[in-house]
């Protein structure tokens, strides 16, 4: 987080609201974060936490009629909030690219995969000849690990397996060598052995191209493998933000504690009960007052009523660069962690 270089992506106080028949959906409520080139930020949260809405806003993919966006999204120093359609389009695919959970909905079923990659290239390289574009596409198909790239160029998406389609979508996203890649649940639909291949591939490509990556996922295991920094979202707000090491090893927010304690593990006592978070995620139309997590937080009462009244500010939690939005005092949090009841003891790993 404390990268010395200028961050490539700088999101400041982003707010996204949707007008619907049922009321205003407060999808994102003042979220700020940065990502430098060569770094990966993992945005973690459950359904309705605002993580996907945030990523779509970076690409200007929300319908302007029903969406109200406030705040700044600086991409390479330029604010993209409020940019005209054609300006956003020039950016999208060239400077910022996206990969989605479901490659079948991102690839056109009617055209060969290679042709779609060529098209993505020529949109931003109008001077390139067909032959050049084809060469570039085949190079990318090869680079993402699809065997026999020249032959597979003419294959249709349905002829690919799920993992191969995901590779093809990554090839399409990276064909213009973007500075920022947004990956929304890129491996959720994949089997675990294929997921491992794709995560390795993304990490390799990042080392090679030095792109900034925003990885959106609900899977803490995936985040722990690839993210340098982690942002935990709840009810459209950032509740914890820091390096992966800080957030996953020394979490400070009760929601992060809850997430970590509720996932079953491959180690330790399998007979021990999981520690679930009570209740369910809030409605974004009718967010609880104060800290949005307070109705589910078992420490809410220790805040002397503050958690029901004020939204806690995201501020440093002791360690530099480790931010948490919680009314609990540092001493209270230490006492909880010391009791060891909440945060599962984790061993090994990188330090």
């Amino acid at each position, binding site marked *: 987080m404390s990268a010395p270089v200028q961050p490539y992506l700088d999101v400041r106080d982003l707010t996204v609201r949707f007008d619907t028949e049922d009321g205003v959906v407060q999808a994102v409520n003042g979220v700020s974060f940065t990502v430098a080139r060569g770094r990966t930020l993992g945005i973690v949260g459950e359904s309705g936490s605002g993580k996907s809405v945030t990523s779509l806003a970076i690409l200007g993919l929300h319908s302007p009629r029903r969406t109200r966006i406030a705040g700044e999204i600086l991409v390479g120093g330029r604010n993209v909030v409020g940019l005209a359609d054609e300006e956003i389009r020039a950016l999208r695919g060239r400077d910022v690219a996206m990969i989605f959970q479901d490659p079948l909905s991102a690839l056109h079923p009617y055209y060969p995969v290679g042709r779609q990659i060529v098209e993505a290239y020529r949109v931003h390289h109008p001077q390139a000849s067909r032959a050049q574009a084809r060469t570039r596409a085949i190079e990318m198909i090869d680079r993402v690990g699809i065997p026999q790239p020249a032959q597979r160029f003419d294959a249709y998406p349905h002829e690919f397996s799920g993992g191969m389609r995901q590779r093809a979508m990554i090839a399409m996203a990276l064909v213009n060598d973007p500075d920022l890649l947004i990956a929304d649940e890129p491996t959720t639909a994949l089997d675990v052995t294929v997921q*491992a291949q794709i995560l390795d591939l993304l990490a390799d490509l990042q080392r090679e191209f030095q792109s900034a990556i925003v990885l959106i996922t609900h899977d803490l295991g995936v985040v722990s493998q690839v993210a340098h920094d982690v942002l935990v979202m709840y009810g459209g707000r950032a509740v914890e933000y820091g390096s992966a090491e800080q957030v996953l090893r020394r979490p400070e927010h009760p929601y992060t504690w809850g997430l970590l304690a509720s996932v079953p593990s491959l180690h330790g006592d399998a007979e021990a009960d999981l520690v679930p978070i009570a209740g369910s995620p809030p409605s974004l139309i009718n967010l609880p007052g104060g800290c949005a997590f307070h109705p589910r937080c078992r420490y809410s009462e220790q805040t002397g009523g503050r958690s029901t009244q004020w939204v806690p500010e995201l501020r440093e939690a002791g360690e530099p660069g480790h931010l948490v939005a919680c009314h609990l005092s540092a001493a209270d949090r230490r006492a909880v962690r010391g009791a060891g009841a909440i945060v599962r003891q984790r061993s090994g790993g990188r330090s």
Partner: protein
Amino acid sequence: MSPLLEVKGLTKHFPARGRGSVKAVDGIDFEVRAGETFGLVGESGCGKTTTGRMLVRLLEPSSGAVSFAGRDITHLRGRALRPLRKDLQIIFQDPYASLNPRHTIGKIVAIPLQANGINPAGGVRHRVQELLELVGLNPEHYNRYPHEFSGGQRQRVGIARALALGPKLVVADEPVSALDVSIQSQVLNLLRNLQRELGLAFVFIAHDLAVVRHFCQRVAVMYLGKIVEVGTRAEIYERPQHPYTRALLSAVPDLERLDAAGRIRLVGDVPTPLNPPSGCRFRTRCWKAQERCATEEPALVPRDGGTQQTACHFPETGPLR
């Protein structure tokens, strides 16, 4: 004691127009004892869901036999199935698609009772409310519709329905994979408490290895329509012998181990079940494969005199990592 569920040579081939058949499940054997939690784990296309559907008679097996409490149920149909339904129930993955949106949850849970002509003491409504309470729902919500509930609550309705007839065995097909992390643990704890309190046996089908480890006492690993390894939780997770089991465990992104040491990365994809490889089906992705693996199919047998059975010519030994 004879097992509650006994599966022998169970096979399901789906015809594929002009291209032979998809060998979804290709001759598997296993047993589940009363009160035992048995996990079927594997990646998409390994045949675990097809197996579950054959067990509860939602699919007709191509060959093989299923017996329940000593009775052959392989080809039961129609009326003859009714009594079996009381003992053998299923919970589905999708809590949205598996509940009729036009029925109240009271009606949804009552249907199994009514269909079997059961009049519980105190009346159907009373029994349904007991069941709702058992799965952690408010019994006063009897008259609400599925859309008024969250995903986790709907899954609880599905569980209440499965328990209505007091089954001995429940087949749970990915019961928590559609749920958010914080809700998943609530439902897993509920299932485990019910299993212990009611002494239920489970066939628990899932792709998530950590979830299966948490819930199941014994586990079978499937690959391309075959069981490649079966054993107790400790055997499968701590001393896996089949290379595929090791690769599968190694691929799970693990919060506890961030180092890449000893990580196994499989190359390529699962071959098509239309035309699975000869011999051992895993050999095309296996780093230990030899000529023998292509010519001779390895039998699922105990390798070291224990309960763990592995279908591999060159099994691994020793603890995992």
